[in-house]
Structure formats: C-alpha cells, structure tokens
C-alpha cells in the first residue's frame, strides 16, 4: 500500500514524529473543520439530504446579493484608494529627503498594526452623529458628511490598509538598480515618461501584491463594516456573523454557505495574482540602490506635507481614543472634564477580558513559535510529499477570514464527541491557525538563506540531527522568529473577527468587550479599553523595530 502510493518506508526518527504530529494537528484543526463547513453548506433546514438550496437562496435573494455587491464595491474601492495613497507615498519616501522620515515610517507601520475597528470607532467619535467634529461644525451651522455607510468604511480601510501598498512598493522601489532608470534617461525619455515606462512596470508585481493584501484584508474584516454599516450597509463577513448569531436561532448551514462564498472570493483573487506574478517576474539584484533626491527649503516642505498628512490621519484614531478615554462620560456620551474613572471601570468590571487577551495571545504565540520553527524546517530541509502537503495546508488560512474560521471551528467542535466551543482552547486554536502562516513564511525565508553545511558541521562533530536542530538551527532562527512573533502577538491581541464568533462569557477578550461597549453606547469604557490595546500595540511595535533592526519583514 505504501509502495502503491509512492511513499518510501519512512525513517522513524524525531522528524518523523514531528511530521505525524503536525499533520494530525492540521487535519484536526484545519481540514476537518473546513470540510465540515463545506458539508454543512450543502444542508438546509428546509430540505432533507444534501442540496444546493442555500446557494440558490444566496444567488436569488436581494438581501444576499446586495451584501455581495456591497462587499465587492467596498473592497474594490478600498484597494483602489489604498493604491492611490500608498504607491505615491512610497515613491516620495524612497526618492526624496522627507522631513522626519523615520517617525513617519513608524506612524505608517502603526496605522497598519492598529485594529481597524478601533479606527472605525474613533471616526465615529469624531464624525459620528454625536461626534466631536460633527457637534463643533453643527454649532456653527455646517453639516459634515456622514461617516456611516460605504464611504466611511472605505475611508477607514484606506487609512488602515494603505501601508500594505506602501510597504510592498517601497520595498520594490528601493531595490531597483539605479542604472535601469539611468538607462531610460540615456535613451532620452523624460522623467514622467520614465516613471511610466520603466519604473512602474518593474514594480507592478509588488503593487499588485500590496493591492491584493488590501483586497483580502478588507474582504475579511468584520468590525469596521459592523460598526459603520449600522445594519444597513451589509457585507459578507457581517452576514456570516448575523446568520450564525441571529436571535431567531441562528442558521449554521447558511453561515457555512456564506463562508464558502467568501473564501471562494478571496481564493480567486489570490490565484489571479499568483498567475499574473508567475508570468511577469522581474528578479532584480540591486547593485546600486537609487539615489535619494536632496531637496531644499520650500520644495522639501512641499514633498513632506502630503506624506505627513496621510501618516497623521492614519494615527488620528489612536490619538482620538487615547484622549477620549480620559474624558468624563454619562449615558449621553462624553460630557467633558478629565477623569480616570473609565479606567477604574474597566479594571473592576472587565478585568477578565484584559487578562484573557494577554493570556490567550501569549499561549498562542508559544505554539506559533514552536510549530512555526518545526514546520518551516520540514518545508525547507525535509522536502518531499509530506512537506508539500504541509506547505499547502499551512498556507491555506491566508484566504480564510477570521469570521469564517470562527464558523469552521464552531460547526466542527460544537457536537459530540469533541466539544470545544466556549473554551479558551478554541480561541487559542483560532489564533494559532490564523497567524502560523506568517511565522512559517519568515522562518522558511531564513532557512533558505542559511547554509545547510552549518548543520552538517554540527552533525559531523557528533551531535545528532535532532540536537543539532535545537542547538544550532533553532538558536539561529530565534531572533528572526521572535521579532516576527511580536507582530503576530500584536495581531492576536487586536483580533476581533474570529473571537466574536468563538467567545463565551468566561473567554471574552478586550476587542470583544470594545465591540460590545460601543454597541451599548458605553463610549468611555470602550475608549479606555481601546487605549489599553493601542498602548500595548505601540510598545510591542517599538520593541519589534528595536529587535528586528529592519531585517524582519513586516508584510
């Protein structure tokens, strides 16, 4: 049988056991839940046996089709605006001597790392019906444009996600060999012409990669459209949540169908991008990175201004929540005056949420680091059939939005024999599954450029391959993996879309609490909780920047 399948008799060693454990874990926590999801999507309350009923409903009812339309409309325009903001910013930042480049860079990263629903919330604080800015302008008789609806959602996504485009494009721009552009110049093309005929085509794959990241992230996001959509602008992840949570019992089958459709959307976009990149891949080894133009006086100021404005707008939500967390509130909202009572309230009432957030994320990070290192080692050094299956499986969560993963885990583990719903374990599992791909990717990148003979030297000196892994490979991987783990830590503590599906009373987190507090108009506590998250995010990010020294990629 083994022979028939083309497998050789496996060597029973340390790595054999690791492979068995990893594959079993993947089957249990990924393949089984996802296939349960797909199966459930073909069952309906109305019909016995397997049926396309749910899909038929989806493509025939206005309620669902509108959500699909909204989703595509919002993701498409968010991608477009992120492109229009991120790409020019990358060009200015890499080619000109912008004032305060380093600070601006940190601001850009911070905008990406902060959870979008906090962004949405603070835009409500500013421009919502009872927002500071709205009231201010109303007092002098000016009506400000509404923040609710598709426009507001796109605005929040843009300011949160443009860093993806920025990071990909600036990476590509600074690795273009300057002789390439000079060649264009020698051939007599003007600056603008050169930008469009030489520079742009070369960085196109990176632009696309950034845009696809924006597309997939905005497609998957739940918090922002939930807060700003107000039940009127529905998108698919919100429907998934509604379908499952709705007060009239909840329909796990319809939630499954919707989930499958969301995954199909993001998978097809990713495959399209891969297809395009595979056809147009300009491998570039930069010998001479392009020169930075040294501008002086008002010209330098003029170039800095737009970049600084965008960076500031990206940070505005964070500033808003931190400031408003110190403002006194009552049931009508903020009433002015400095106070610490919001913090007192969250410490007395929501302490569990705070400890849960840090505890779940820390445990998840431990698993992510250990499994990340082992899996990336197998992918790079133990290539074979098992490794390629593992590669496919570990990268699959890229295309699974948080709320979908939530539904997957619920439909798989809410029945006998395995009931995990409502436990801390299921929360941690969802964090590990979602963040593992990032660690595996950076771990593999490190191993590809690490010389295999360093390991062989250790083995030749009498250390067994297993001990060599821990004494040499893991030791060398650790700095990179750990700084990557800080990034995963940041996204775990800010995680909302799967937590909101999976939490129970005892396992609720800060992000879930923020969502609930906003929903019940308890703005003060929401702001205080958001500030706790923001502060942790900023601190973690600073540690990351310190540790990684620019060597660990953020994207």
């Amino acid at each position, binding site marked *: 049988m083994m022979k028939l399948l083309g497998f050789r008799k496996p060597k029973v060693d340390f790595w054999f056991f690791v492979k068995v454990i990893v594959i079993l874990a993947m089957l249990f926590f990924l393949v089984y839940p996802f296939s349960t999801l797909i199966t459930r999507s073909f069952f309906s309350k109305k019909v016995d046996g397997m049926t396309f009923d749910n899909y038929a409903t989806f493509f025939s009812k206005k309620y669902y089709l509108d959500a699909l339309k909204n989703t595509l409309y919002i993701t498409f325009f968010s991608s477009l605006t992120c492109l229009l903001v991120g790409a020019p910013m990358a060009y200015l930042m890499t080619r000109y001597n912008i004032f305060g480049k380093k600070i601006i860079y940190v601001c850009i990263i911070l905008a990406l790392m902060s959870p979008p629903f906090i962004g949405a919330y603070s835009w409500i604080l500013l421009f919502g019906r009872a927002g500071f800015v709205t009231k201010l302008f109303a007092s002098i008789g000016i009506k400000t444009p509404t923040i609710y609806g598709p426009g507001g959602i796109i605005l929040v996504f843009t300011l949160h996600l443009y860093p993806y485009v920025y990071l990909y494009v600036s990476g590509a721009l600074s690795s273009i060999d300057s002789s390439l552009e000079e060649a264009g110049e020698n051939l007599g093309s003007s600056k603008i012409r050169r930008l469009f005929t030489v520079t742009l085509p070369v960085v196109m794959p990176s632009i696309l990669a950034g845009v696809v990241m924006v597309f997939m992230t905005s497609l998957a996001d739940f918090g922002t459209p939930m807060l700003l959509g107000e039940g009127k602008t529905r998108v698919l992840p919100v429907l998934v949540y509604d379908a499952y949570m709705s007060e009239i019992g909840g329909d796990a089958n319809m939630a499954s169908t919707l989930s499958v459709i969301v995954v199909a959307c993001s998978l097809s976009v990713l495959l399209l991008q891969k297809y395009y990149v595979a056809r147009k891949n300009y491998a570039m080894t930069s010998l001479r990175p392009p020169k930075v133009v040294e501008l002086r006086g008002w010209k330098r100021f003029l170039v800095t201004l737009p970049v600084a404005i965008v960076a500031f707008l990206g940070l505005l939500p964070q500033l808003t929540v931190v400031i408003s967390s110190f403002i006194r509130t009552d049931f009508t909202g903020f009433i002015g005056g400095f106070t610490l009572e919001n913090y007192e309230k969250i410490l007395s009432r929501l302490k569990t949420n705070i400890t849960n957030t840090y505890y779940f994320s820390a445990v998840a990070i431990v698993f992510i680091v250990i499994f990340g290192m082992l899996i990336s080692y197998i992918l790079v050094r133990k290539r074979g059939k098992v490794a390629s299956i593992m590669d496919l499986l570990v990268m699959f969560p890229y295309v699974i939005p948080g709320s979908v993963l939530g539904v997957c885990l619920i439909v798989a583990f809410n029945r006998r024999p395995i009931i995990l719903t409502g436990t801390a374990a299921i929360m941690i599992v969802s964090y590990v599954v979602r963040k593992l791909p990032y660690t595996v990717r950076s771990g593999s990148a490190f191993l590809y450029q690490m010389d295999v*003979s360093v390991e062989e030297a250790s083995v030749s000196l009498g250390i067994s391959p297993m001990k060599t892994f821990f004494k040499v490979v893991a030791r060398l991987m650790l700095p990179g993996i750990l700084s990557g783990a800080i990034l995963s830590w940041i996204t775990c503590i800010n995680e909302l879309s799967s937590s909101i599906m999976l939490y129970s009373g005892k396992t609720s987190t800060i992000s879930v609490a923020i969502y609930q507090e906003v929903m019940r108009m308890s703005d003060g506590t929401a702001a205080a909780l958001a500030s706790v998250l923001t502060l942790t995010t900023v601190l973690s990010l600073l540690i990351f920047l310190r540790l990684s020294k620019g060597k660990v990629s953020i994207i």
Partner: protein
Amino acid sequence: MESYNVAIKDAVKTYGDFKAVAGITLDINKGEFFTLLGPSGCGKTTLLRMIAGFNTIDQGTISFGDRVINNVPAHKRGIGMVFQNYAIFPHLSVFNNVAYGLKARKVSADEITKRVEIALEMVQISELAARMPNELSGGQQQRVALARAFVIEPSVLLMDEPLSNLDAKLRVQMRATIKKLQRKLGITTIYVTHDQEEALAISDRIAVMRNGLIMQVGEPTEIYKKPENEFVAGFIGVSNFLDCEIEGKDHENAVLNVSDYRLPGIRLSQPYQGAGKIAVRPEYLTLSKEGIQGKIELSTFLGDFIEYEILLENGQTIQLNEYTKDALTIKPDGMKVKVMMDTDSIIIYNAQGEVLN
C-alpha cells in the same frame, strides 16, 4: 581516537536515472592524505558526503578499518569535516566553535580549554579565541573550521574544497598549513578539489574522477608523468594532443609520423600500427633546427617563461614553453619554426585512447 584506513567497495549513488557515483572501489591507507580530483559533476563531493554520512550509500560498502559504516549515522562516524564555505557557527565565539565537538564528547572543562588552545595554536590563531565569527576574515574562518575538525581527533578527516573561497595567495599559504598539520597529526585525510595544482601540491595520492568513475589512482608525479588515459593527461597540467601515424613492424623500435616528420626509435609495450595520438606537455617541446614544421601564431611573455602558440602544417595548434633563461630572444609572431620533442616524456595512445608505451 585512532585513525583508520578507509575501504570503499563498489560504491554507487543514483539520483533517479543519473549515477552520480557509478561503482567506485578505493583503498585509502591509514594516515594517508588522499585527494579526490575531478571537474564539477564528476561525483567527488557526492562520494565524500557518502563517506561523511550525509548521503546514503545505494550499493556497495564503505568501511573504516574493519567496520562497515553504511548504516552508521553521520554523527556516530567519528569524522571531522571541513566545508567549502567554512560553516562556522555564527552564534559562537572562536573558542566555543572549536570546543563544540569536545563538549558533545563529555570532555572535562579543563581538558577542553587545553585542547582548544593547542588546536588554535596549531592553526596560528590563538589570539582570536574570543572573537565572534563575523569579525574574522575568510582565511581566519577556515582556520577555525580546520581546528574545529581535528581537535576532536577524528578517525577520518574530510575536506570539501576547503580553499576554493580564498584568494590565490591565501590559498597557497593555507595549503601548506593543512599539509604540515596533516603530517604532524597523521590523521587519514580525504580531500576533494577540482584544482589540479592544489591536488598535486598537497596529496600523498590522488584519484582522478570523471562521470562517477575513477580514471586513475596514483601519486602526484605518477599522475602527471604517466597519465593512463587522454582524460587524465588533459585534466592534469597542460597537454598537447597530436595526431600521429605509428609505423614499423618491430614495436620495440617503431616510428612516429607527426605532421610528416618522422620520429624513430620508439619503444611500444605492444605491437600496433596505424593511427594514434600522442600527448606531450609544453615544457617537453623545444624549438630546434630539426623537427616538425610550424609557424608561431602568438608568443606571450610570462616572466619566467615564454609561451608560444604554434600552428603545425597538419593544421593542429600546440603550446610550447621556453624558459626565459634558455631563450636568446622572444621569437616574433608569424616566424617559421621547427618543433622537437623529448620522446621519453610523451605518452602514445592507440585510436581507442589506450596507452601504448
């Protein structure tokens, strides 16, 4: 640990349909400096890695002393290995790099310090003990790698092109260090290189390899002077290959006809008449009053000798070296010359490429 002789018997390594090592038998003596020499892709590194335990042995056996090591894992073979790219542990100091293998062997701390210090002294980098690898030059790193490999007193020392990443001057220097060290320690050493000059300079014996097979095994002088086939003659040093006609019934007194010039009194080991080939090194050719007619195509002055590229009348081009101290003048390009050869220093092959003398 005591050093062993290494016996390789009918060793085979295949990758799919490709035989990287196609049945090799070698006996390497205890304490010998043995080199596997050949062009890239000849299977020399594959064979070395089979000995090290990093490649499996598909067929045949390899033994250290009396013990067949086919199924002994790499970390239990008691080898020391030096790699092409040094493979220094980047997170350990020079001292700890060298101590690494000793710690695994549960040697006492005092003993480790003593042995590491001696090893570092032997490779002349005692003063670098506390440095980290990123503060070392390539040559210094390779000295660390060398000390790390022999400090554990391996039963066999394996070196995979250890000098190829160093610059020319350093290469010659390190070559001498390695050779002296090996003599002193008496460890059986198997050395892989594609550089024939390095192989000739450093080895007790050389195995020349091609396409996964051994072409010739012998001492450096033997390989240089008596290449057993055209491949070895062409790969080791520079050889001119000239078409010739072998004439005369008496094979002990045959005549070679090269480009219509007859060289009499040639002793062959077996009777042969007809088309053949001779291999002759540039330094065994001289310009003289009598000989094969030709014309200088290009003369190049190289300091201690002059290199002439000469077009013979039969259309073949040969290289001839003349020592500057023996030459009166440098002959100009285009000049007609006659070329003579030392018939005791040529190799004669039949049409099948087998040696006749």
